[in-house]
């Protein structure tokens, strides 16, 4: 089957890649763009380890055809840092020990980033925070530390001076 050209932006950089139309976004990012921070966990839309943002919305990249992202803006976990400085939620994860094995972390970071962007200056409740990562599974069951990290950012503890 004929390959097709896909043009999109990943973490602000333009990419033009040649892919089969059946290529999933997760594979396009990992194998064609070469960014392996995005993980394939379950491949059945359950675990959320493959979560990336498409035009600012969190999606599970294992269940999106890459070709459908023509012209769109993709943000992966590699795109969170700015000029070598970790993003607020990344720093909060470090401070709160929100990593155990780390496999769910890229997905957790992307879901919580999308959530915090959406919240803006609003302070979410713990329930809202927990709902925001409901699409992401942590098999080490380290949810409490992740919730604490998201809450810390939401409370403005990582605001730049």
């Amino acid at each position, binding site marked *: 089957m004929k390959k097709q050209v896909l043009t999109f932006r990943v973490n602000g950089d333009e990419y033009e890649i040649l892919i089969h139309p059946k290529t999933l976004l997760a594979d396009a990012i990992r194998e064609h763009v070469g960014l392996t921070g995005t993980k394939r966990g379950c491949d059945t839309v359950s675990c959320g380890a493959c979560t990336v943002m498409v035009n600012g919305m969190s999606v599970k990249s294992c*269940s999106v055809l890459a070709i459908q992202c023509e012209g769109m803006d993709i943000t992966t976990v590699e795109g969170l840092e700015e000029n070598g400085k970790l993003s607020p939620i990344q720093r909060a994860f470090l401070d709160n020990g929100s990593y155990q094995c780390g496999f769910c972390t890229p997905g957790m970071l992307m879901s919580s980033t999308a959530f915090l962007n959406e919240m803006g200056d609003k302070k979410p409740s713990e329930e809202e925070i927990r709902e*925001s990562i409901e699409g*992401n599974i942590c098999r080490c069951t380290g949810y409490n530390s992740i919730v604490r990290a998201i809450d810390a950012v939401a409370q403005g503890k990582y605001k730049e001076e």
Partner: protein
Amino acid sequence: MINDFQYLKPASLKEALAMYAEHDDCKVICGGQSLLIVLRQGMLAPEYLVDIKHVNELKYIKFDEKDGLRIGATTTHREVEKSDIIAKKYPALVAMEQKLASIQTRNWGTIGGNLAHADPAGDLAPVLIALNAEIKFGNVDGEKTVPLDEFFVDYFETQMGHGDLVLEAHVPAPEPKSGCAYQKFNLLDSEMGIVAAAASVVLNADGTCKNARIVLGNAGPTPLRVTKAEDLLKGKKLDDKLFTEAGQIASEEAQPVADIHASEEHRRHVLGVLTKRMLKKAFEQAQKAA
């Protein structure tokens, strides 16, 4: 592993319908949150795939006090969930969306795809049917509108034939003194229901029941209306005893199967309980409503 397919990207709805009609071995993808799973499992291996994700003609939420609510097929679940007018006029739809799969899935998946997929465990259809919705679908030759409860004919099968696309869901304007509630029974909210029940109640001015609709999810080959249980309530002054009785009838009318998640007996029991609770919830809303 997904089989190879020829990817077609129509520029308009008209072109999409023409492409679909032209190719026999062809499927339509929008958000693909259901289709990609089926493709990956190899249950479908179409030669052509028509992508309508970007077809904006079908992306809309319109509300009019007389006409009610119209949601275009390529509207995402998240757009329904975040719609102020839907939250105000049809809160049961928003509450259902908040528990439909995950945020990621709702961001990309669409209501048209959800309904076309026709999974009897789907969350959207029972609530829409309880709200007396109809569905519009069409092909190159024309359009057709049918009540949503007649749209589903069997497991993953609808009235649509090859070349037909879901175009719009239409929900009538809310009646005065009405309420609607939905709940699924499962271990994780983000999963589909092991069973589910939606109920709507409309009251007369004197407080008696003008109309009631009860729709069960994952309780048969299609989203299932249990009309005997509904009929029990009409014209009566509603109370807990009637809700319990309606739940009992609903559990008998249900056609659940046993699987790894629950036995048939257990499903029937929970369907009875959910029916009772959703009726009560819908009734209390209707009492408070203007």
